[in-house]
């Protein structure tokens, strides 16, 4: 009888609604904002060069566009893998309902894809025209198609290209911001999960997106240039780190402000959120997201900003801090997506999440999904050269 009584006590004190018992949105839904976020941040770097004329970012501008494109290709992949019948997503786009937030994402995604593809085509056109003449077979046909079968590289047409690029990047920035802000809005729109349902969600998501994308670009640039034995542009890395610092401070400040305002207001589900952050999420939120992956980078970035250091040292710490911040954003996504679902709307209990290796949304699936954008990036690098030849000469 004691056993029965014991269980009964547990049931009342840790009562979880049946539909809250299982974490439905698991690791694929963690990857969804992560991948869209990488796209956003990479696009910001390109926009800073093409629209705001920050000249020092020139070596990275083209690469970040391709990086954004590779990840944008996979932005919906985790969502589709999460669905039982992925082909039905087209129904949602054919018959959009004003009460369905997901359909809106489909349209914004399609528009941003179109804009990004055309930006890449116009940015690369002078190179593609040259490559068209040196290539053979199918690749030549591809180059003919993506240069609109035109060899015109006159001053007039290049000026026209520049105007088009400025226009496309100009509309691209709000589209990119809306794309990721919308991801935050979709989470914020889920009333059933108290930690998601805040108007601050799109803001936090947007800043952390810029953070992760810029980190990814810095890390990828340094790693790829090192591996291929090319020089690294210090000015470019410095500008990136400064931008990264700004976005990191904003992202981290908003993440903390959200927690502090909740704990000060003590509104609604506060007691549950407090229990969540100090209970099931104590290690992944306070230790990993805040202490290890936010406070340490803050110190490193501070040292990088205030003290002079050698070029090699600066590049090393830039790579390290970018890697930590990439992890920070991934953990933040985890804490929001998985963490939010660990508390029941019953306001009485918490549930648990154990990642599986070979699950449909398991760790192996996560690794595969994260590897695909890099494969796409490799294929893109065969068509669109990452680096301009003058990079090598301008870099000292």
């Amino acid at each position, binding site marked *: 009888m004691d056993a029965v009584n014991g269980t*009964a006590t547990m049931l009342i004190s840790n*009562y979880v609604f049946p539909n809250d018992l299982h974490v439905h949105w698991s690791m694929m839904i963690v990857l969804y904002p992560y991948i869209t976020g990488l796209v956003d941040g990479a696009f910001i770097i390109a926009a800073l060069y093409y629209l705001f004329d920050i000249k020092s970012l020139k070596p990275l501008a083209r690469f970040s566009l391709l990086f954004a494109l590779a990840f944008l290709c996979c932005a919906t992949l985790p969502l589709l893998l999460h669905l039982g019948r992925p082909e039905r997503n087209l129904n949602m786009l054919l018959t959009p309902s004003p009460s369905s937030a997901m359909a809106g994402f489909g349209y914004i995604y399609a528009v941003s894809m179109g804009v990004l593809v055309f930006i890449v085509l116009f940015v690369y056109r002078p190179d593609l025209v040259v490559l068209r003449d040196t290539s053979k077979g199918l690749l030549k046909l591809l180059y003919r198609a993506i240069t609109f079968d035109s060899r015109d590289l006159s001053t007039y047409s290049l000026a026209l290209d520049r105007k088009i690029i400025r226009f496309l990047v100009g509309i691209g920035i709000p589209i990119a911001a809306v794309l990721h802000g919308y991801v935050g809005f979709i989470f914020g729109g889920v009333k059933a999960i108290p930690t998601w349902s805040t108007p601050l969600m799109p803001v936090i998501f947007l800043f952390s997106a810029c953070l992760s994308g810029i980190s990814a670009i810095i890390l990828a640039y340094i790693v790829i240039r090192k591996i291929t034995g090319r020089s690294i542009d210090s000015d470019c890395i410095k500008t990136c780190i400064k931008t990264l610092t700004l976005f990191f401070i904003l992202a981290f400040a908003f993440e903390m402000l959200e927690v502090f305002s909740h704990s000060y207001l003590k509104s609604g589900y506060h007691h549950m959120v407090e229990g969540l952050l100090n209970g099931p999420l104590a290690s992944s939120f306070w230790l990993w997201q805040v202490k290890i992956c936010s406070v340490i980078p803050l110190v490193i970035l501070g040292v990088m900003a205030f003290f002079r250091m050698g070029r090699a040292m600066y590049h090393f710490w830039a790579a390290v801090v970018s890697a930590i911040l990439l992890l920070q954003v991934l953990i933040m996504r985890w804490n929001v997506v998985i963490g939010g679902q660990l508390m029941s709307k019953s306001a009485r209990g918490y549930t648990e999440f154990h990642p599986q290796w070979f699950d449909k949304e398991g760790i192996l699936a996560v690794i595969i999904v994260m590897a695909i954008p890099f494969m796409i990036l490799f294929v893109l690098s065969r068509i669109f050269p990452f680096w301009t030849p003058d990079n090598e000469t301008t870099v000292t």
Partner: protein
Amino acid sequence: MKLSYRLRLLIVLISLGVLTGGGLLLKHLLLPDSFGVYGPYRANAIAEAALVPIRHGTNASCFKCHAYEAGIHKTGRHQTISCEFCHGTYMDHVENGRKIGTLPVKREKQITTLCLRCHNTEIKARSELVIKTVAMPNHLADQNVKLTHNCNQCHHVHAPLKYIIRAKQMTRWTEAGR
């Protein structure tokens, strides 16, 4: 054909417009006729749904004939449970007011299985305040009855505490600590 770069871009732009128009046309062709009349769904679906034959009755439909069971069911703890929940679908039994078939009656071990569908402690998501749950065979051992007993040997299936309350009244026996 020699076209200027500007003209080619114009062609790209027009193609994009045509593609978008084509997409909208395709959307129009793919949408069912009555879609969007009332909202983002097929209006005809309402009429079609209304044509689906009704399969279920209410407890009142059952009680019209089963007056004896009604008397017990309405007084017991199970009064809010639908008859069909345990016995099956009304339309398999009655059509146009006439009996057309016999619903299967659960017997012996099937009874226990049926009861545990709701009353099993293993179903952790249920509060003891709302529904009494037990672990088998611990419950039988606790009550000092044979482990082969079925639930309905102590509990009336329509009014689970009917016999228990009666037994307590007759023996003036109370459970320890209550």
